[in-house]
């Protein structure tokens, strides 16, 4: 009995400490608009081994000296999701915290956790209470879906007591642009109608679209290839990759060749002077031969095993 009393006596400050810690965290979160700015000591408090709350921590380096562009890109999404979490009712809200740990405010934590890159998002599950997880290890957020807030909130909702009520803000600027565009289109329809009815306008749009697509534009778009290589190279060897600049070059090459054929078919036969016609025939044939050779050379750079070549 005595022993029990002693133990319970000892337990009181511990319990109070935990309670204090949580209260402190709640107030910190409230003051930081849902996000706790961490330093080394609050980090230890937040990730204390006996915690009945879960916590999602963003490791970042926002200081301009660190030149971390992704961090800057990701930070607003993080804050938006954290802000959305503050709208949840208090008893649920206080069981999950959002925190941000900047490298320059707590480099020791980075060293301790052996982190070499940023941004990172780690989610620590609670170790006590009804939601306690057997795994004490934090889970890591996969940035393969990008830095947007939507996928982040979907992912984090797996770890929070209730799903995060995040809604993407309405992009007023975009809507305004669309509406303004439609309005101006409707207003000027009378004047631009002849242009819109011109087949050659549509022809140009069609040709440019298909040239860009055939130049591999969608590849650079989907894969997010850089415009040029790191060392300034504009053509990347290998048939399965390409840089942004290659789209322009290849589309221009195709366009030139197609244009030469169009000239030979639609313009040259209508010439009124034999001499001029002959010059044009030779000119466009020369252009075709030359540009085609360039194209084959380009292709040989991409596909080293290609056995054929033309003039070049």
């Amino acid at each position, binding site marked *: 009995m005595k022993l029990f009393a002693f133990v319970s006596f000892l337990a009181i400050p511990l319990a109070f400490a935990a309670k204090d810690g949580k209260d402190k965290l709640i107030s910190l979160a409230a003051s930081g608009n849902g996000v706790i700015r961490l330093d080394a000591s609050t980090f230890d408090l937040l990730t204390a081994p006996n915690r009945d709350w879960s916590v999602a921590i963003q490791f970042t380096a926002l200081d301009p000296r660190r030149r971390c562009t992704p961090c800057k890109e990701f930070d607003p999404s993080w804050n938006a999701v954290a802000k959305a979490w503050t709208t949840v009712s208090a008893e649920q809200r206080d069981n999950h915290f959002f925190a941000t740990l900047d490298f320059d405010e707590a480099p020791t934590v980075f060293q301790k956790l*052996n*982190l070499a*890159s940023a941004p990172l998002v780690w989610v620590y599950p609670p170790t006590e209470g009804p939601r306690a997880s057997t795994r004490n290890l934090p*889970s890591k957020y*996969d940035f*393969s*879906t990008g830095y947007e807030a939507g*996928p982040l909130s979907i992912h984090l909702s*797996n770890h929070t007591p209730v799903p995060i009520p995040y809604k993407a803000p309405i992009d007023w600027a975009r809507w305004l642009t669309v509406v303004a565009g439609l309005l101006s289109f409707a207003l000027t329809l009378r004047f631009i109608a002849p242009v819109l009815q011109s*087949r*050659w306008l*549509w*022809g140009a749009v*069609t*040709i440019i*679209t*298909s*040239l860009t*697509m*055939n130049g*591999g534009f*969608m*590849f650079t*778009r*989907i894969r997010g290839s850089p415009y040029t290589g790191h060392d300034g190279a504009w053509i990347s060897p290998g*048939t*399965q*990759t*390409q840089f942004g600049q290659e789209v322009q070059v*290849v589309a221009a090459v*195709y366009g030139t*060749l*197609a244009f030469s*054929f*169009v000239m*030979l*078919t*639609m*313009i040259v*036969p*209508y010439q*009124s*002077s*034999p*001499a*001029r*016609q*002959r010059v*044009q*025939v*030779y000119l466009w044939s020369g252009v*075709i*031969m030359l540009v085609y050779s360039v*194209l084959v050379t380009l*292709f040989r750079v*991409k*596909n080293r*095993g290609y056995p*054929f070549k*033309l003039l070049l």
Partner: protein
Amino acid sequence: MAIHTQVWRAVYGKSADAIEKSVENVDESIRAIICIPRLFPFTFGHVDGLPLSNNVSPTTVANTASLLRIVAFGLISAAAIASRLFAVINFESIIHEFDPWFNYRATRVLAAKGFYEFWNWFDPTAWYPLGRVVGGTVYPGLMATSGVIYNFLHYFNLPVDIRNICVLLAPGFSALTAWATYMFTTEMKDSSAGLLAAAFIGIVPGYISRSVAGSYDNEAIAIFLLMITFYLWIAALKQGSALYGTLAAVFYFYMVAAWGGYAFITNMIPVHALVLLLMGRFSGRLYVAYCSWYAIGTLSSMQVPFVGFQPVRTSEHMGALGVFGLLQIVAFASLVRSHLSSKQFQDLLTVSVISMGLLGAGAFIVMTYKGWIAPWTGRFYSLWDTGYAKKYIPIIASVSEHQPTAWPSFFMDLQFLIFLFPAGVVLCFRDLRDEHVFVIIYAVVASYFAGVMVRLMLTLTPVVCVSAAVALSTLLDIYVDVAEPAVPENENSSANGTGAATADAKKAKKNAAVGSQAGPNAAAAASSTLSDIVNAAKSSSKSSPSKQKGIWGADARLVIILNAIGMLVYFVFHCTWVTANAYSSPSVVLASSNPDGSQHLIDDYREAYYWLRMNTPQDAVVMSWWDYGYQIAGMADRGTLVDNNTWNNTHIATVGKAMSSPEEIAYPILRQHDVDYVLVIFGGLLGYSGDDINKFLWMVRIAQGVWPDEIQEPNYFTPTGEYRVDERASDAMKNSLMYKMSYYRFAELYGNGNAIDRVRNQNIPKIGPTLDYVEEAFTSENWIVRIFKVRKEDPLGRDLKSANAFAQGKKRKRSKPVSRRRAVV
């Protein structure tokens, strides 16, 4: 014989009378070869004045032309089929790749047991333990086609093996595709362009890639069906024929039964009809063609069990329905308009038509929101929102043929057609008849799709061939034409810029141009190239030649023709090279070359599958990544957990989880699914890059989609974010079942030397992984296929790890096992 002079005569018509009657036919054929565009005299307006018709009856010319067409077409078909046989000659008559193995297996069932059995076929070995209702989840067109051919041949007592029919189906259908493309292009321009297009599509690598012998896949017949449906649609539209519309619907039904890509037709034709409506080209022909196609096509497509009620319930098909409704409204409006004259009533009518259209569109939106119409399925949606698949359906994004296309693939697959293609589109814009609008829309849409997904290069290829053929044939028409226009009289003055163009004088010349006879009244030339261009553009856009066209001088003509022939010859070489080197590998058998240049075949897959077939119990279940499911079912005849059908994401994720988890976690999964063997593909010894370690991240990603807490992709990278398999590999990587099975005893192969993974160029640690729950059962000659047997539970109830340790005489550590044994008991 003086062929040369006779040709000369025939061409210039000087002494045509001298030609004897008895050799008339011979001469005609020679003539016809020399001047290609004359082959088809009835398609040319300007042919009347030619000397050719002086003493030869038009019927003879027409007959010869059609005979030559048939001969040319026969040669094209032969070339198309022959170039697809590289795979058979270099390897053997074998089914290729992955999906064809399923189609082959299903066809065998169909041929052996009949159509009803096939229709009701439930396959319990696939997707173990779920099974698969094959008859209801398959596009049966391909198998039915082979089955019909098989039964047809056997009826005539030609005992051809079903495998050979399957292997040779794609080459055979490529000849039909060439014919369909010929018909289609003939509708666009004329039959000379048609023959060019047929020749192009016969050998173009973009189509060969999916139709070599042995590539027994839906695409093998689907491209033929695509082109024939489009041709019939155009024919129906041009003539306003319900018969052609119905035929289009019949072939559309065949297409629906054959390939999931039928949705391309389902949307192309409505878009074409809609654009024609918007261009103000509504006509009775359009109405008849579209309605007969849509009504019959939709009803018949719903007879395919796998499609069912989709045509009225999913967004992919709503466009066709919407245009159908719109056409009814417009047809009604035009009918009413033709009977009424009141201006106000017509205004009212216009307003009501527009509001009805809006109402209909609104109804669609509401029904989509309410869920009565299913939204776009993931596969189609990912074509528009290209990031969608990667985020939400990694299983679609993981397929290599769903990757976006880089430009070298376009050039590799289409070569010089790719830059003739825009020129052909420009020519379509020049004429802009209803059928040209179709080619234009097709060009834009297919270019986009081919850019998004490599496999959709297949749908781009036909339109590129058609369009390029139109461009090249137009060019040749002009430059092969030996009739020269009149030489302007005051040619010198044109240089001084004093002459003024007089269109009337030139127009008068148009029909009188005969051979080299120079007309006396020549027109003054325009003063500058710029005005030439303007005139030409003007004349071409009005498509009424206000000015004569033609080429002076044989040298100019020769340059162009030689250039064109050179390009065509190069194209043939290119296609042959690409076909032989890139597209004829069965991928079941790999080819490499010995140091002396001779071919060395790597036959590990069949070796391993045959081992499975001969050495494992009939009801054994093999777990592998889904890529190999069809092959295991087809070649090894064993049950699989997942296969290339990929209909159940969770099941695939389960396999992914087992592969990417440590042994202790994977083992219960394996046992729960009755897995007896685990099969992995490992290319590290040979440098074969398509192995499972390279696909491993997709397994992780797909598993992560279902168990985000347990499997996390970043754990499989080193802290610096690299994907490594050597000493520095992350713990999760090193402990995963996949890694362990791949590199099990790999280092021993090298003795004391460095064990190098030749795919990833990394050194594998000397002390390799150990396996407790599975044991090595088979490793093929070049280590490409490794099969591991899943061990049964320990008879003494120990976990297999401690049982192994005990068997190896290792002392147990005191701290660990006490509680564990108790837990087991």
